[in-house]
């Protein structure tokens, strides 16, 4: 449930957080993204950058251009208009994923913990539609939900110090894809050969807030073939747009 009125939380002298609710919810997140979209469309003078997360939008501003009172009034008015319908159609990005084995080195353990056969676990994970709430923490890392409840799993008790980039992992109700090698507390079910963050590319980031993601299971041979195309800069993931 959204708050009746947004909370405008001070974040220093150059930013304010517009918080719409205190929960992880698709509708709330769509309103956050709608608010960001309206700010971009209207080109509000003095707003310098925005950063959406689950249920709030961090708004950076220049107080020499827009005062705090005017900013707050502008943001409150825009929140009232910020409905999911104002957003452009969402993209669906198909992410190839090699499940199990050395790529998904915790698939069997996770399946065992949930009392599922590994093949069933893959079928359930790859059968779902994922929603990207926001991208961050590390460059290009998507925060997603969409898994069937059957896959809800407590996070690892002892987080890893290193998780390979591209690892597709789950914890709680969330699914994420590690964009750079990093510590991690989610169960690694598989790995994508696609780069979510490629500092050498003209556009280094694959996924954006509001995207939908589908995982397509690939066998090791196809994984390696795609990895080679990625390395040669020739792989383009399948992207479709729909309401």
């Amino acid at each position: 449930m959204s708050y009746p009125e947004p909370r405008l939380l001070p974040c220093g002298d150059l930013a304010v957080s517009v918080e719409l609710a205190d929960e992880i919810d698709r509708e709330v997140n769509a309103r956050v993204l709608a608010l960001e979209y309206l700010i971009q469309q209207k080109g509000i003078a003095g707003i310098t950058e925005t950063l959406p997360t689950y249920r709030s939008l961090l708004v950076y501003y220049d107080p020499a251009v827009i005062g705090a009172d005017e900013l707050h009034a502008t943001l409150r008015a825009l929140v009232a208009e910020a409905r999911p319908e104002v957003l452009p159609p969402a993209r669906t990005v198909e992410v190839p994923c090699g499940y199990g084995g050395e790529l998904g080195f915790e698939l069997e353990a996770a399946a065992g913990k949930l009392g599922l056969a590994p093949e069933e676990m893959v079928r359930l994970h790859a059968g779902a539609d994922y929603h990207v709430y926001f991208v961050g923490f590390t460059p290009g890392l998507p925060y997603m939900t969409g898994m069937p409840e059957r896959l809800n799993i407590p996070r690892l008790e002892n987080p890893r110090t290193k998780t390979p980039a591209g690892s597709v992992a789950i914890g709680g109700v969330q699914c994420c894809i590690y964009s750079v090698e990093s510590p991690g507390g989610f169960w690694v079910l598989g790995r994508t050969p696609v780069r979510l963050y490629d500092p050498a590319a003209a556009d280094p980031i694959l996924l954006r807030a509001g995207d939908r993601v589908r995982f397509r299971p690939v066998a090791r041979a196809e994984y390696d073939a795609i990895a080679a195309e990625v390395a040669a800069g020739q792989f383009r993931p399948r992207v479709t747009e729909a309401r």
Partner: protein
Amino acid sequence: MSVRVIDAGPLTTVQDLGRAGHLRVGIPPSGPVDKDAFVLANRLVGNPEGAAGLECTLTGPRLEFGDARWVAVTGAETPVTLDGAEMPRWASFPVRAGGVLKIGAARAGVRAYLAISGGLATPLVLGSRATYLRGALGGIAGRAIRRDDVLPLGAPTGHAVERRVRTERIPAYGGEPEVATILGPQADRFTPAGIAALFEGSYEMLPQSDRMGARFRGPRIEHTRGHDIISDGIPLGGIQVIGDGQPIVLLVDRQTAGGYTKIGTVCSYEVGRIGQVKPGQRLRFKHVDVAEAHAVLAARRAALSSAIA
């Protein structure tokens, strides 16, 4: 049109005013931690204020110049020598082709800035030359500079003459500074005693601090109900307090989002000062409200524009 690195120093990176506009895909701005010192270095040599220069950490580099340039060193209190002769800080001076400039170890402060007329001409990545080490982005192949790197220089555009920062405008980096801090976004997740601890205690800078965050040790800051929140955006200067009750101030290479409570946010114009506090040195957080902070910010901006004699 280049500078050769003879010695790099422990952590010397190419920085400009940063990579704005990519927080929403998880890329922090980077740029100099002490922006005012960086901007003044550029102005001293006649560069646009966003020209790329070097940020040196604790000890600076030794550089050989391929052609004649003007340079200026600001920030941390370091010895500066040109071909072995001591040179002024916070002032511009010419370097001949073949000249060797050395920036030594900081006596006070942490980060020194070197501007070279024409600026560093490393490639623009997402609109900026700033180095983001964890993301391997910008600068020289996304890393700190190394011995034998050759740093390309741009053509000087400005008018280089001897300039110096007014003596009274040169900051002192010793002592126990106070940094203005605004409560929020999650001040309501701390007890009155916890908030009092933040503003009444003194906090020691820890050596694990870096461009991502400055870690402190001091009086415990008490939460009301745990330190976890639904992950949200982390502002520049955000003071994250995790389970141990100790504050971490998030800086220019910060993670863009996180799930820990933030009791307050250090004002933008104080971030550079935090970047000059040495490990083991202490500071205090001073409570201000947003209106006070905006007044001080405007005054600081005006002071910066009149800092050069």
